């Protein structure tokens, strides 16, 4: 499997062309898609996250690594689905109503995918009813929402209230993020946790699904 170290390296250095090629070759040669994810892709994204936490990587590096990981995952995902492999968890993610700032949300989505979660990305400016519909339809156990602005963060509170009103709050874990979000705020609005960055969001999601 020495050649597959190239997959790890391609994701770590953000080379989407190589990660795609190596994945294609590996699958053609009969490699187990689940093993590619578990042995190379997740460890590579874990290392990307570690380097980000250590101020060795910054947002551009996260973005190119995420792009390389996705290029590979797009080839693998249909194979995993076909054999009914269960993801680490199912996450519905989006920026809340009124907020269009999605670079942080996209990074969290990519890191969660890279960690083996199935991510249902609703995009930006997502109203509570859309979160609820997706949670019900996809049987997701996690919801991740973000807001960049002090003016839009209140939508996270109203969205959680809508989960309660719809009677689904007890079935899901809620994680939040975004520049003005704090642990205190997460507690106040009844979220299950918050993270200041994409790497922390993965650790939090792992913790929440294990709880």
């Amino acid at each position, binding site marked *: 499997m020495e050649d597959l170290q190239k997959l790890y390296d391609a994701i770590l250095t953000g080379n989407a062309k190589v990660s795609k090629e190596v994945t294609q070759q590996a699958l053609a040669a009969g490699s187990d898609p689940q093993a590619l994810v578990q042995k190379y892709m997740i460890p590579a994204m874990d290392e990307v996250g570690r380097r980000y936490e250590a101020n060795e990587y910054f947002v551009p590096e996260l973005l190119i690594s995420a792009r390389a990981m996705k290029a590979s995952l797009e080839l693998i995902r249909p194979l995993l689905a076909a054999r009914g492999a269960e993801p680490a968890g199912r996450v519905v993610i989006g920026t809340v109503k009124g907020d269009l700032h999605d670079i942080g949300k996209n990074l969290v989505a990519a890191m969660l995918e890279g960690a083996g979660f199935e991510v249902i990305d609703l995009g930006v400016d997502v109203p509570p009813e859309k979160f609820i519909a997706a949670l019900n339809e996809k049987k997701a156990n996690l919801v991740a929402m973000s807001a960049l*602005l002090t003016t*839009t963060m209140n939508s996270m509170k109203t969205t959680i209230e809508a989960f309660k009103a719809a009677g689904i709050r007890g079935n899901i874990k809620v994680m939040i993020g975004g520049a*003005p979000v704090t642990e205190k705020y997460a507690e106040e609005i009844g979220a299950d946790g918050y993270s200041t960055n994409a790497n922390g969001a993965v650790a939090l999601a792992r913790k929440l699904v294990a709880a």
Partner: protein
Amino acid sequence: MTPRERWTAIFAGEKPDRIPTDYWATDEVTSRLCKELGCADKEALYTRLNIDGVIHVNPERTVKHFPGDPQADIWGLRRTAIQYGAGSYDEFANHPLADMTTVEELHAYPWPSPDDLDYERFRKELAAAPRHRWVRSGEFEPFLMYCALRGMENAMMDLLVEQEFVDTALEYIFTYHHAVNERIFEIGKGRIDVTYVAEDLGGQTALLFGIPEIRKFILPRQKKMADLARSYGVHIFYHTDGAAFDIIPDLLDVTGIELLNPIQWRCPGMERERLVEAYGRRVIFHGAVDNQFTLPFGTAAEVRQEILDNIRIFSGARWICAPCHNLQPVTPTVNITTMYETIHEFGRM
């Protein structure tokens, strides 16, 4: 002292009679404050709250739209208003460089011309600007413009993987602003006090980009723009959001900044005491009244305490009291008035 005299003194390293103040807010907040405090206009608001605010004067465009697109501005950008309940803000609705793959396409792009501005009107507005306040003219934040034109994620990835492309685009943006600023500094000789040079280099917890990319793509053009301003005796107002501590030495030594805004002191590394100790002798701190927690969500007592803390912490350095970035509609009026009343009451030097 007049507001002008306070700003002039602090930039000269002299002691003003009191800590100077400044004002940054959305139009919605300014309208609300004027209405609630019975002020006819911004000048009346500044007088009412003892704000040493700076007057912004910039030339209007004579050509308003991109060739062939009446919906777009001169750069080719369309905007759409996003409602969030208490107000709205504009977001870009398109990214005209998003699908480009070659520098040849950049060369073929109809970049705006520095000729398409109304310099005569600018001359008149400058002459009419109040004499008791500082005047700010000229703006330069090229990577922010590049993010709008290219889309933020592409723009950031380009710093690593499409370096010739991003460099070429930044050079076009720089060339435009350099030519515009040269003309307005020439027209405004002796009347323009300060110019705005900016780039958001810090995020909430760390720098957004690696230092090698900042040194390669951002700082050299900032230095050229700052050198141009300095050659006309115009001071540099420098803005970067977020956790930017690690890049401050470069900003001082390469760009040559005199003032750093907005001092988001809750971000890691941006602790006020640390900044004062490291750079208090070399740079004026502007802002430092927290606009993510204290002003929007704190009590008036917490705002007052933050002002008192700032007065104490910055006592060994130079500080201009202002909110960290634009006051937003979510901020209660009482928090805003408390900020300015407290600095007026306790800011005597």
